[in-house]
């Protein structure tokens, strides 16, 4: 009886030690995919409206206290080539090989409904607000493992490679401005409403109305981000193929949903590891007793002590 109790005790101790308590209710391990935010905010960007004036870029830098990236211009003006550790928002130009087709594109965090960065972040430094769905970063929880960069299908999070206290830099939807009842700096700065701010439902309706109003104008007659990667809170309308402006072709099932499926089943209440532990411990315990008897016999016969 004591042996059984002890075994159970070790099982529990190992469980507490291993501590992979996936499946505990009320924490991050909920539905797969997780419930949508209650009042998701959104941005809608339309390539046919953007004039490439880049007013949104300094507005973003100013609102977020980012030092302008002036490396390419020899220190004269802000001129990032792409998103980087100083740039959370960028306007890029795409041209076809023969130059006949072109488009501007605005890039920033897509604020996915089921973000890979949040799913992979070991201590929840990246978190999606259950209210407005903004994906934010909390410095005190981040160990700098950069799994978010590996996981993000849009290659959005950037790491401050040249700082001793490096931060993860990415658009946080100007959540400090949202808290003050303002809209994000980029949408506020845009002079032609190429990028607009609103609730996700309203902007999706708006986007579909634009598609319906002008058949043939938009690529594939669809809104990028409505279902792509499981849905995003930044939506795109484009007159050129999405791939061309850097928006990858992704499944409507998010990577996290696919990645979570089996681990969640195996680790639910730790039943998988505990079952294997029980099985292994049972077998090992029997072999161990036999091994001990054999070791004692050999020690009596030869005088040699067993070497574990």
């Amino acid at each position: 009886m004591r042996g059984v109790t002890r075994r159970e005790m070790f099982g529990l101790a190992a469980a507490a030690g291993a501590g992979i308590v996936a499946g505990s209710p009320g924490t991050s391990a909920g539905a797969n995919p997780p419930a949508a935010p209650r009042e998701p905010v959104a941005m809608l960007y339309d390539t046919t409206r953007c004039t490439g004036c880049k007013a949104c870029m300094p507005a973003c830098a100013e609102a977020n206290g980012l030092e302008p990236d002036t490396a390419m211009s020899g220190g004269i003006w802000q001129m990032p080539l792409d998103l980087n550790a100083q740039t959370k928002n960028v306007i890029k130009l795409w041209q076809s090989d023969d130059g006949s087709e072109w488009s501007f594109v605005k890039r920033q965090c897509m604020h996915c409904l089921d973000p890979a960065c949040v799913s992979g972040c070991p201590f929840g430094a990246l978190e999606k607000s259950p209210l407005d769905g903004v994906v934010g970063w909390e410095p005190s929880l981040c160990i700098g493992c950069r799994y978010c960069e590996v996981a993000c299908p849009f290659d959005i999070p950037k790491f401050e490679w040249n700082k001793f206290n490096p931060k993860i830099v990415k658009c946080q939807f100007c959540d400090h401005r949202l808290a003050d009842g303002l809209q994000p700096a980029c949408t506020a700065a845009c002079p032609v409403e190429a990028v607009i701010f609103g609730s996700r439902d309203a902007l999706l309706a708006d986007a579909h109305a634009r598609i319906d109003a002008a058949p043939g104008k938009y690529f594939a007659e669809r809104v990028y981000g409505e279902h792509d990667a499981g849905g995003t809170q930044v939506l795109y309308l484009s007159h050129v193929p999405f791939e061309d402006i850097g928006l990858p072709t992704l499944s409507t099932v998010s990577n996290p949903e696919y990645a979570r499926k089996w681990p969640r089943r195996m680790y639910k209440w730790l039943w998988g590891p505990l079952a294997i532990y029980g099985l292994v411990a049972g077998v090992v315990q029997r072999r161990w007793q036999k091994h001990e008897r054999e070791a004692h016999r050999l020690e009596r016969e030869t005088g040699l002590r067993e070497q574990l």
Partner: protein
Amino acid sequence: MINYWQRGVPVWQVRYLTVSFAGLSVVAVVGLALAALRMVSPLGPFSGMSDMYAWGVWKTFNVMTLTAFGSAGFSVGIATWVLGHQRLHAVMRTAILVSLLFYGTGLLALGVDVGRVWNFYNILFPWRWNTDSAMFEVALCMPLYAFLFLAFENVPYVLERIWATGGPVARRRIRAVEPFLRRIYPFMIAGAYVLPAMHQSSLGALLSLAGAKVHPLWQTPWLPVLYLIQAVVCGFAATIFALMTACLYWKRPIDVSILSELADLLSKTIFLWLGLRLADVAWRHELGAAVALDSYSVIFLAENVGLLVPALVFRSRRLRETPRVLYNMTTLAGLASLLYRFAPTTLAFRPGGPHDVYFPSVPELLIMCGWIALAIVGFSLAVKTFAILPAPIEAWDRLIAVARADHPEWRLDVHGNPTDD
């Protein structure tokens, strides 16, 4: 055939300081010094990593690849304590030492790699755990395994040495803790087989989240299972390789029969892995990509042929009992395994555009090599100090005879046991 290897015997009557030992120590010290410098500096100047290739060789090689070889204790342990291959007890100490060294240096590499290591204390607060994250699973499970379970497995030979050569107080204390260690031993080693199964599969699961960035020949829902079985393959290969290399280097006799048993297990595990790997690729209709002969296909073929050939060769008892064949084929299997564990993290990892490339910088490589050199130096020191490498019983008798003559104050009997204990 008699069981030639019977007992762990230290590598004795050799000098600690040799030319190769000094050379490796220099590599280790350079690596450690650079790593220390990195801890007080940003990551950028020390590595070739970028936002696209955010993981460099410290993670992808020292951790994700080399801890597979650190699964030696896992593989041999399961074969011995679970599957009942009794004779492999003779090589257990070598296997767990290899494990401790690869895991220990891998975790050190991880500590240098993460950018905000001071926030790791968050692991103490369960309500901050993201239990969906494979990275969290690795971050919790791997240190727990290395510093608790694996360290525990490595305790007996240390105590044995102190017991044989220490003073009366030390001997009494060891006598006092021994019954406790024996009581928890089977439960601890059972834990030492569950935890690697968890984190070695999680290392594969890490890549699930990267989706299409990992080439379809490697990206599969079976990645965790393939990574786990591959860890077992690597564990057997690392054990054979470490034993044979050590025996060749220090001119100790080898036991072809035990090595052949390991090779047999290695071969069977490879067949299991290859079957699963090929079935998965076929099931996902990627066989075309496998034989396309582009760079990815070449890596894929190199992995699989590099594993298939040793697995086939080892089906012949005569061949696997031929030391040269055994050594060369194990090395080939080890290299192919290494390629499989490394490829999806780097060679077959394709973020962003075709212009994004990653090649480790010089300090990054020096630190990487430093960890490996540190492990080899540690191995050399350990096998010269403790009774780890297996040897015939006569070697033990000779060791004790010399120890009794040189150190009468230890008061050892002819079997090496303290007479006053």
